[in-house]
């Protein structure tokens, strides 16, 4: 976007955070930054092993086909070509044994890394290992494959039509039938669902057909809610499919030693990636070593990494040589995951003040060909929490298509649901003559806000919500009333518009373990099983532990990124749960260390443990008197053994943690604990987002003048990292408004948007030079440190505020789908109505 005439403003001073704390709420330099800034940080593809082979993939040219025969002789005869791996070489998918002993059978529809029945264009069919990449690529070129083309579909609506093609041979939708004799829904299965001709008559009128759905819930009296409404709007909206486009592709390097596989690849989680690898390879977790000190972005696409990593591992086994699989950008587009687009329809009733009296929500989620994504059900729960409708029905269907596989992407379902309803709320406010902030304020969740379906007659509820305060703070800091007084205002061909959007997402889980060692030299080692994906939570959460123990950060070391390094059972880094879950575990572990220090002091110096306190790197008698340094206490812990130095582990920690405690035994005072703190409610974080745009109505181009995200995200742990998440994740959402989408040739099922420039993520020139963020810093009452997660909550607000600012500038009849591009604006302005197809996917 050009034509920028922005008044340069200085960065506003950061608010002071962390009152009463030494470490929590303070900025610091994370211990991984020096390696990053000097180029020494090693990402997966930076590793080299002696004699390493290279592998290349053969990707399916067809969206759905059956491999009849592979002619590999010529390729395999080439000098330097060492091995081929096909789907026939893959281990059988392993069942999952959960921690409470339940066996989850492996899904027969699951993704396995290579296939003899490709279900999307770009799906890997085979891999070749050779002495170098060029040879491997030449071998791939020499492969000949006989395919039998199968029916395919790229738009969910096409497969739901009567007689429409199925993306999988046995169906087109994911359903969760209740198993006989069981309470809740069972494992998802693929079944066939076709809507009627009558259902599809809606499509001709530009409205989303609403046929039968496998999933539905409701609460309240929908009919009377609509009857008593002052305004009822019934709108459709389409959200884009967007690739995660992590800058580091999912390259992997693997080798075997003494029956153990060593895998280098970038993933979001460390401790929890190990069992995933073991499951994919169908081997014992004891035989897996996983190394990932640095990960070049995940955003939900690498929660435990991709199944494709086993290709390198299996080729390494077959050749008994290390194998590097470098994934190119184009390959990443196919195998690298994406957010599912939604085709959505909502009927919303409003009182004359703007309160939502009834909400009827209907969504179709484009799942891609593999495992069921949870975006559709998630969208209903998030919308019900964020806008607190007095009555609500949600219906959804997760439809398979022959397009690249989806996975969670920052705010899965949250973004789609919020982006469908936000333009409707903006439109309602204009029709009712209510201020945009006021209409959101009146619908805001507050306190233990209820949400979602009725379970045994009751809704679930949030731990807390201070979104009204965040909205008010944001409106003030954004100078909302001042801006609306002059907006929309036209100057020449330029029109300004302002928009506000609410946003929220899950902000934490509970029940994980922490582990630390106070070493005899007085230093503390925090064992971190969190992945280093750029959020800094891998380091940040341990500041809460250091705070409890009163130890300066300079005396603390964080151990991370390698499963041989004795890591505790840790949450996956996804769903914005880490900061919440792992500050709880860090707090519990520090309390365990404190208790052990007091006991050691009492044993050595007399008195009772509670007569001792821990501060200033010492444990000493309250009110003065005898004491010892942490270094001395660590030496005593080793002498005492048992629970003090890790020879005994707490009974309630996970078996992974127990193994790590045993490995660390004797190294100092070993503290380990499970987070058993109570929590009343489900944890969410909330954001109010504000944007001003300027549109050139002669060219259709627009740019973002200003942006602010105001967060209710609990206690602030690390302000700079928090600011990075608030604005970074907002910008990921903004990408969905200003240009990112998939485009397919539906006739051949071929993807057109394969590279960055064809589905361009925002660049630094697409956002204001001085974006703003603020956070309330109100502790969540249901967690010891008060911290909640923040990765996902800002995402939908970024997209929603831009869309609402655009409709403020241009009116309600310009777009019915995101993203909104220059051509959308120009053609629709000329015609006076939305000119893009309202419901077709991937245009």
């Amino acid at each position, binding site marked *: 976007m050009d034509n*920028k005439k922005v008044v*340069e403003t200085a960065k506003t001073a950061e608010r002071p955070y962390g009152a009463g704390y030494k470490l929590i709420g303070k900025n610091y330099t994370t211990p991984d930054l020096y390696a990053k*800034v000097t*180029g020494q940080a090693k990402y997966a593809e930076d590793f080299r092993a002696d004699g390493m082979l290279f592998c290349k993939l053969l990707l399916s040219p067809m969206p759905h086909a059956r491999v009849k025969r592979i002619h590999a002789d010529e390729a395999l005869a080439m000098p*330097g070509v060492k091995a081929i791996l096909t789907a026939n070489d893959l281990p059988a998918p392993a069942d999952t044994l959960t921690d409470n002993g339940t066996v989850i059978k492996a899904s027969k529809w699951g993704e396995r890394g290579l296939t003899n029945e490709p279900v999307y264009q770009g799906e890997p069919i085979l891999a070749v290992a050779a002495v170098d990449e060029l040879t491997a690529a*030449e071998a791939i070129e020499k492969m000949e494959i006989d395919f039998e083309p199968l029916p395919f579909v790229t738009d969910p609506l096409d497969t739901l039509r009567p007689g429409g093609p199925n993306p999988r041979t046995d169906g087109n939708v994911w359903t969760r039938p209740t198993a006989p004799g069981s309470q809740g829904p069972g494992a998802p299965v693929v079944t066939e669902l076709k809507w009627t001709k009558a259902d599809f008559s809606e499509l001709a009128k530009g409205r989303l057909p609403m046929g039968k759905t496998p999933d539905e819930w409701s609460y309240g009296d929908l009919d009377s809610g609509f009857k008593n409404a002052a305004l009822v709007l019934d709108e459709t909206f389409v959200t884009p499919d967007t690739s995660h486009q992590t800058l580091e592709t999912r390259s992997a390097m693997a080798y075997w030693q003494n029956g153990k596989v060593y895998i280098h690849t970038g993933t979001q989680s460390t401790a929890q990636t190990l069992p995933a690898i073991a499951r994919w390879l169908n081997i014992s977790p004891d035989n897996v070593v996983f190394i990932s000190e640095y990960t070049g972005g995940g955003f939900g696409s690498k929660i435990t990494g991709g199944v494709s990593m086993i290709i390198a591992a299996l080729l390494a086994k077959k050749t008994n040589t290390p194998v590097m699989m*470098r994934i190119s950008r184009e390959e990443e587009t196919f195998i690298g995951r994406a957010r599912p687009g939604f085709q959505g329809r909502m009927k919303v009733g409003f009182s004359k003040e703007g309160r939502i009296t009834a909400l009827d929500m209907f969504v179709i989620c484009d799942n891609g060909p593999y495992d069921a994504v949870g975006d559709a059900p998630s969208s209903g729960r998030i919308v019900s929490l964020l806008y607190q409708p007095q009555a609500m029905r949600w219906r959804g269907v997760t439809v398979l298509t022959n397009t690249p596989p989806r996975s969670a992407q920052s705010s899965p379902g949250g973004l789609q649901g919020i982006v469908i309803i936000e333009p409707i709320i903006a439109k309602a406010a204009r029709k009712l003559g209510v201020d945009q902030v006021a209409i959101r304020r009146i619908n805001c969740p507050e306190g233990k806000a209820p949400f979602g379906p009725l379970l045994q007659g009751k809704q679930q509820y949030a731990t807390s919500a201070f979104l009204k305060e965040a909205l008010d703070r944001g409106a003030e800091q954004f100078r909302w009333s001042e801006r609306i007084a002059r907006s929309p205002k036209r100057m020449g061909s330029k029109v300004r518009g302002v928009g506000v959007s609410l946003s929220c997402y899950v902000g934490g889980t509970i029940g994980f373990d922490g582990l630390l060692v106070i070493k005899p030299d007085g230093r503390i080692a925090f064992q971190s099983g969190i992945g280093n994906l*750029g959020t800094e939570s891998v380091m940040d959460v341990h500041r809460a532990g250091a705070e409890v123990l009163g130890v300066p950060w300079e005396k603390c070391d964080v151990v991370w990124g390698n499963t041989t390094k004795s890591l505790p059972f840790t949450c996956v880094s996804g769903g914005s749960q880490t900061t919440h879950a792992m500050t709880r575990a860090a707090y519990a572990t520090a309390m365990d260390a404190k208790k052990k220090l007091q006991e050691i002091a009492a044993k050595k110096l007399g008195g009772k443990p509670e007569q001792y306190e821990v501060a200033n790197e010492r444990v000493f008698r309250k009110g003065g008197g005898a004491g010892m340094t942490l270094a001395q206490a660590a030496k005593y812990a080793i002498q005492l053994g048992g629970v003090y130095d890790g020879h005994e582990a707490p009974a309630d920690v996970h078996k992974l943690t127990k193994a790590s405690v045993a490995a660390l035994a004797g190294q100092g005072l070993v503290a380990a604990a499970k987070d058993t703190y109570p929590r009343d409610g489900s944890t969410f974080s909330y954001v109010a987002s504000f944007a001003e745009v300027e549109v050139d109505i002669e060219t259709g181009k627009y740019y973002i003048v200003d942006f602010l995200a105001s967060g209710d995200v609990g206690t602030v742990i690390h302000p700079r990292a928090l600011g990075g998440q608030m604005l*970074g994740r907002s910008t990921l959402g903004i990408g969905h408004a200003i240009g990112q989408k998939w485009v397919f040739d539906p006739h051949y099922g071929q993807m057109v948007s394969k590279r*960055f420039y064809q589905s361009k993520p925002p660049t630094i020139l697409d956002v204001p030079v001085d974006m703003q963020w603020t956070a309330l810093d109100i502790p969540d009452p249901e967690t010891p440190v008060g911290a909640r997660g923040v990765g996902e909550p800002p995402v939908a607000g970024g997209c929603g505020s831009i869309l609402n600012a655009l409709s403020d500038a241009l009116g309600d009849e310009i777009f019915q789908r995101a993203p909104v591009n220059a051509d959308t604006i120009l053609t629709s302005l000329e015609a006076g109505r939305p000119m893009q197809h309202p419901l077709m996917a991937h245009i």
Partner: protein
Amino acid sequence: MTEKTSNDAPKAVSRRNFIKGVITSGVAVSSAGYLFRASTLLHGQQLTGGVGERLITLNVNGQQRRVDVMKQETLASTLRYKLGLTGTKLGCDRAECGSCTVLIDDIPHYSCSVLAHTVRGRKVMTIEGLASADGTLHPVQQGVIDEQGFQCAFCMSGFIMTAVGYLKTNPNPTRRELANGISGCLCRCQDYDKILTALMRGAENSRRSKLG
């Protein structure tokens, strides 16, 4: 295959020259430029055609480095896979993301789009060459430390090298000017605001270190 391309060593490596350079090498144009071939890994086996390597000398981070390169080999490949300088990252393979940016005679270039043999006689600087021999960070690196710039940092070396090059032409930029200067780099964590703050601090550090 002609000698011409390698002998010319053009002063500015244009896209056209890059493509020409690849075409004259006579190997698969679409992919060969970013595929890696290391002759040392062939274990004495016969190669499959005229993919010759030639020993050349490159000036990288102030050192003369002797290295075997193919005609169609990109500078990024040489740096990463033959000289072990993996701080230079490949994010897109073809001039879209800027992660592979290095300085060639003080000017930022996408090293994925420069042929290694064309930079003979020129000074190549990578992220590994920025800090002083005694470990003192370059003022721009220090700015990133000061402001906790970047998240996953896969894009970081590209941004830092671009900023270092840009600041040589405009040592005292506004945020807008610096944003324009580094706009050839893509950060997928979308941490642009904090990156800009960090690199502005880097600019300030650079000015201060020159005064001192």
